[in-house]
């Protein structure tokens, strides 16, 4: 267990190194500056020790010698300033660039992850990884750079300087060093696990908050505010407790290493004094030693502090790498021609979201170029699933979907999707202006084209009444537009893009019938010569379809034209008649 965890940590560390590779030039420069900083910093105790030795007692102060040393101190201090400043700035640059790169990589992976994965994963958790975890990672990394390098070098430098002054006293320090490291390592190892627990609990709370705040209105309507509070309190308590553990445990490092260092300081004091009595070193040299013993303490404190911080950073990086390394969606290489005829077939398709619950079984049909295929049936029959398969948001379990005679799995996804235009029941608009949303499928459209599409979709009149017309900025989730208005915008978006094949999944479900009728003309014009798949409840709109699939519980029970199906007098006929029976009549 222990080994596995540390293997995983090493692996993460290796990946982080990979991220740093492009910045190796800067890293080198940063290292050089760190070296400069350390050397100049360590020279100060030596110089002040020398100064002390120039003033051995009353009337015995060597002023010219003292002044020379003080001048040296000034020069060295200037050196520290310059090296440190350059180092800090480089480290900032590297850290923030690497964090940005990490965020971008994770985000880019989201763009190619299978839709199935995105549907399945918790969105709150992903957001928390890319935002919060990346931030924690950046904090840890920055601390690592600024303090780890200088810390290690200070330790090495200090030992070097001490050896130079007096080997025996230096040995006292060196022998005690492993104790300090051991303690730090022990604590760091333990806190890594606690930090992971904290990350997990935070992710869960974030997820909960996201749901309850988004649905706050609903929570209030249900009178569920009190209960939501209770649930929140429970989750908050869990997080508070795991945070307490992680924070307290990791904060033990500092006092512990400081303790070890105090011991080292005492040991140096005694050993140094004894050597000084024997005449081995001067008081000034002892002062330098004590200065080092103190300086020696700091890097250990820092390194251990950094190590715990780095553990946290690594835990966060691990969560980001998990996204970055997730399998991208498989993609075919073949491209469809510029203009497709629009022949679409399903052959013996089996599909289910959950292997345990069979959904679509042995579905076959053919849509010839320019035909309209309507999919009808009660809710939950699997109508939207067909759309998922056509667009290849999901892959079939068995059988194949063919477009223009080619299995769509051989096709480049972008090439396939570029031939489809779709309006879904669940409207989605980006936060941005209406114009940006409309131009999504055709960024180069002219103003006239855009307005024409909006007019055709009967969206122009309400857009014009918005505070800034087409430049009105939509808040996330479409802001205060009604469902119907959002749907009209989605239709306008499609009408502007106008690809060769269309998918309309309940495209007008939130639009009133009068507006719907008015749009029908535009729809008919659009559908002409374009293979179209329609999912609809209002059977009236699909009467003219070339092929109607009647589905129930994932199975296509009937297929044929409106006339054929009515003659058959089966499920479809029953459904159709039910719509034109009015209770009052």
């Amino acid at each position, binding site marked *: 267990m222990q080994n596995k965890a540390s293997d995983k940590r090493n692996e993460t560390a290796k990946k982080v190194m990979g991220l740093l590779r492009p910045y190796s030039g800067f890293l080198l420069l940063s290292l050089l500056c760190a070296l400069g900083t350390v050397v100049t910093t360590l020279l100060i105790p030596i110089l002040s020790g020398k100064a002390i030795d120039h003033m051995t007692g009353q009337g015995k102060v060597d002023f010219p010698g003292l002044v020379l040393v003080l001048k040296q101190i000034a020069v060295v201090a200037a050196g520290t300033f310059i090296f440190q400043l350059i180092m800090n700035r480089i480290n900032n640059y590297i850290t923030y660039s690497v964090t940005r790169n990490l965020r971008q990589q994770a985000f880019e992976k989201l763009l190619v992850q299978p839709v199935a994965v995105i549907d399945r994963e918790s969105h709150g958790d992903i957001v928390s990884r890319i935002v919060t975890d990346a931030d924690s990672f950046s904090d840890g990394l920055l601390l690592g750079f600024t303090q780890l390098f200088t810390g290690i070098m200070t330790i090495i430098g200090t030992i070097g300087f001490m050896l130079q002054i007096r080997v025996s006293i230096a040995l006292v320090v060196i022998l005690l060093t492993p104790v300090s490291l051991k303690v730090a390592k022990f604590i760091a190892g333990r806190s890594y696990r606690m930090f992971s627990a904290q990350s997990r609990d935070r992710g869960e709370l974030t997820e909960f908050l996201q749901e309850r705040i988004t649905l706050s209105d609903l929570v209030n309507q249900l009178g569920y505010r009190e209960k939501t509070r209770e649930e929140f309190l429970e989750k908050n308590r869990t997080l508070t407790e795991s945070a307490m553990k992680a924070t307290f445990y990791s904060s033990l490092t500092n006092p512990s290493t400081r303790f070890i260092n105090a011991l080292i300081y005492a040991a140096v004091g005694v050993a140094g004094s004894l050597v000084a009595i024997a005449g081995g070193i001067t008081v000034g040299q002892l002062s330098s030693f004590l200065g080092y013993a103190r300086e020696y303490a700091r890097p250990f404190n820092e390194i251990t502090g950094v190590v715990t911080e780095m553990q946290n950073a690594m835990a966060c990086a691990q969560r980001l790498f998990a996204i970055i390394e997730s399998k991208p969606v498989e993609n075919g290489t073949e491209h469809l021609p510029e203009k497709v005829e629009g022949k679409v077939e399903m052959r013996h398709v089996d599909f289910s979201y959950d292997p345990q619950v069979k959904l679509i079984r042995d579905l076959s049909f053919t849509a010839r170029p320019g035909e309209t295929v309507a999919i009808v049936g009660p809710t939950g029959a699997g109508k939207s699933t067909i759309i998922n398969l056509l667009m290849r948001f999901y892959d079939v379990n068995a059988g194949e979907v063919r477009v223009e005679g080619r299995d769509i799995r051989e096709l480049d996804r972008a090439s396939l999707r570029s031939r489809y235009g779709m309006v879904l029941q669940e409207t989605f608009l980006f936060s941005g202006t209406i114009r940006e949303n409309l131009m999504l499928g055709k960024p180069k459209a002219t103003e006239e084209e855009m307005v024409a599409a909006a007019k055709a979709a009967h969206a122009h009149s309400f857009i014009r009444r918005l505070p800034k017309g087409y430049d009105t900025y939509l808040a996330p*989730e479409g802001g205060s537009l009604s469902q119907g208005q959002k749907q009209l915008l989605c239709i306008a978006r499609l009408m502007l893009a106008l690809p060769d094949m269309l998918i309309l999944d309940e495209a007008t479900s939130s639009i009133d019938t009068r507006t719907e009728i008015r749009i029908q003309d535009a729809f008919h014009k659009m559908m002409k010569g374009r293979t179209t798949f329609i999912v609809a409840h209002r059977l009236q709109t699909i009467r003219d379809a070339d092929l109607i699939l009647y589905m129930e519980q994932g199975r296509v029970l009937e297929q044929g034209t409106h006339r054929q199906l009515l003659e058959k007098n089966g499920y479809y006929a029953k459904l159709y008649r039910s719509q034109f029976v009015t209770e009052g009549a």
Partner: protein
Amino acid sequence: MRFAAKYLGDYKKEAILAPLFKMLEAIFELLVPLVMARIIDVGIASENRGYIATMCGVLVLLAVVGLVVAITAQYFSARAAIYAAGKIREDVFFHIGTFSRGRLEEMGTATLVTRITNDVNQVQNGMNMFLRLFLRSPFIVFGAMLMAALVDLTSALVFCVVIPLLGLVVYLVMKSTLPKYRQIQIQLEKVLLRVSENLEGVRVIRAFRVENRQKKEFARDTNELMNRQIGAGKIQALLNPVTYTLINLGIAGILWISGGAIQTGRLSQGEAVALVNYMSQILVELIKLANLILLLTRAMASAGRLEDILKTAGDERSYKEDTVCEDGELAIEARDLCFSYMGGRDTALTDVSFSLGEGQMLGIIGGTGSGKSSLVRLLRHAYDRTGGELLLWGRDVNSYRDEDMVKFIGHVPQKANLLAGTIRYNLLTAKKDATEEEMWQALEWAQAREIVEHKEHQLDEPVLKNASNYSGGQKQRLTIARALIKKPRLLILDDSASALDMLTERKLRQTLLSLPWKPTIVLISQRASSVMSADRILVLEDGHVAGFGTNEELLEDCEIYRQIYSTQFGKEAVDAE
């Protein structure tokens, strides 16, 4: 600052003990150079090895006591900071819970979530570090100065110059970076929004193949974030070098003054060593502090953002004292009702008047954007109306408390939504003591019984986030069941059967009309067939009442209703009526 202090106040014991123990720790540390000076001046000068050994024992003792004291301090500071942070999260979340719909729309949910998670986290770290260091550090700094003054007053003058200068540097750096960190947080929020949008809109992004555009926009946002971080870092990067330089020059100054003092015999060599030691002790302390200033500046920026939320009045709606029941017969009465959304150019509703008797059914029909949903929102007082009167059971809607509204009104929103959990859990959200029987009954009324019956775990079937494992129609029916389970006096269905097929919808409508407790029903729909059997039908057009009456009356004299009717049933149907 005051914000954090308020919360730490709840953990007064810990918040006081932590810095107190830190100070104890500092005292023990400050004694060390003095002991060392004694070792040099007494032990080495008189070559007394026994004395040196004793003093060494003192040093070890100081270290042990220091360790115990330090761990205690860490514990108390962690406890105070983390529990206070927990309380902040609680308060902010509860406060957000009181936000009205309008307020939430205005603020956006993404930013609220980051504030509770990210910002509170920053504040927590800030408080923890503050307790640990911000009292200890001045104590060490001034303590070192005091000790130095005890050793030699003239030399302490150097401290008097260096320390204020250091203070000034710290202050200037904090002051100039604080606004920059606010900017960084704002940009971070943009990044958050971008990520969550790309998850929610994955189908649209893939379908329109705008992955590249999204990638570019994200790159632009993260680049901007990086630039802002580097900008703040530039100032921050000055802190350590300046501190080092000042201290090193201070050491030079002390050595210079000590030289003179030793020459005249005022100072011993051991004391000079102690003075240098104190100066470098300040350095060590300030370097630690400098690393934390970054944290603290950020924490302050975050605390400001949290305060902003807590200061925002969550509920801008007005309440009225009104307990008089004018008329028991009418369930709803609207007189010249007007409404416009905040910042909206147009009025959403103008002079809407109608009334509905108890136990009756009102159908509302009209085009997209005609004001149907706005009317419903006013009915449950989600917004304040701008003018006119709106009475519910004879009382002004503004006079009902939200708790009462919840009790009386069962509302099924346009966009069906379930909470993550199980079906049972969702039904219990509406009625916490519902029995198994009541649940099945509600499901049956909502035509949702078969959905649940087909599930492996029945009522305990899981509901994923956004109910993504249910189809639109299933979600709608489950949402209706949830509204029915508490048997509300007024049932509002806001186009909540749009994803249902006609057959199911018809069955649902029939059930609604025969509910045993005879609720008053407001039903919004796009379809004439859904509302035609209602007792009263309100036809809305661009926020105005275009017609109000029964199906027959409206077919007679409301042109718009006739049009809607004919688009659904054909011209002949209208004539036939």
